[in-house]
């Protein structure tokens, strides 16, 4: 039951993030929706690791694979690190863009069209 509640929360965040990504024209709000999507992914990975674990992951429990039980947390750490680094780079590009162009709306920035 707890797993289902957390997964519904995560899918709600995912759909709101997709809506924001497709609709908004401002760059920073688009980046914020992308962060929401990353968050929902991390939440579902950790919830699955905590609440459903099958022993076919380990064929038998030995000392070597004993500590792999909480590997969902490790995947969450990697996702958070990569998402934060990518956000920093994207915002640096927004800063550089703001000096050269007069607008920062996404629909006015398409130069490769036609």
């Amino acid at each position: 039951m707890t797993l289902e509640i957390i997964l519904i929360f995560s899918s709600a965040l995912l759909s709101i993030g997709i809506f924001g990504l497709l609709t908004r024209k401002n760059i920073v709000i688009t980046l914020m929706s992308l962060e929401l999507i990353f968050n929902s992914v991390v939440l579902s990975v950790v919830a699955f690791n905590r609440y459903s674990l099958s022993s076919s992951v380990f064929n038998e429990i030995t000392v070597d694979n004993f500590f792999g039980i909480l590997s969902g947390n490790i995947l969450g750490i990697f996702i958070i690190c990569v998402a934060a680094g990518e956000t920093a780079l994207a915002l640096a590009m927004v800063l550089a863009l703001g000096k050269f162009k007069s607008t920062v709306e996404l629909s006015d920035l398409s130069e490769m069209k036609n």
Partner: protein
Amino acid sequence: MDNSLLNIFIIFVSLIGIASAIYVVAQTNVFRAAIALALSFMTVAVVFFAINAEFLGSVQILVYIGAVSVLMAFSVLLVKDLQTASSSTMGIKYILSSVTSLLIFIVLVFVIVGTDWKKTHEISDPMINEILFDKYVIDEENRVITTVSSETDLDEVRDGLINDSIIPIGSMLSSKYFISLQIIGLIIVACVIGSIAVTKNTIENEEEGDAEAI
């Protein structure tokens, strides 16, 4: 039920998180959207603390609220054109994207409620359940793990892997996922160098008077 209090708490926190996420997406004032995004991150961190993933919850607070939200707010302050976002009018894009996201949400909810989570991933080995919550002992010479259910006076008895959740994370990060850790370090170095390289020309082209103020 065993954890009905936990369920009520997670439902309450999820509602706050969903409300602030809708506020982020629908707001025209960009700064308020950044603050609402920080609130949404905080609710996700609270859910992490409730699932006994405390290390990941602390990392979420440290990285997302301490750094990413501050970065978003900084960029709103420094670039003049970003400060008011135009609200989108009722065009065809608005209707199509809202229908798409609603459909995704409904399909996912049906899948989640419809599957029987206990049957697909059953914890068929009762030893895993005991190791997660009861005390365990590792015998290094004979390479054997035993669970200790009664109170014996062993010095090395640990309280269950969920209570000391930092031990599996640390040992796996340094043995099995070590290469991934180093590659993450390289990715972050690349991001830092890239962001400095992108914004380098804009600083050199300014007058000296502008840079003196900051």
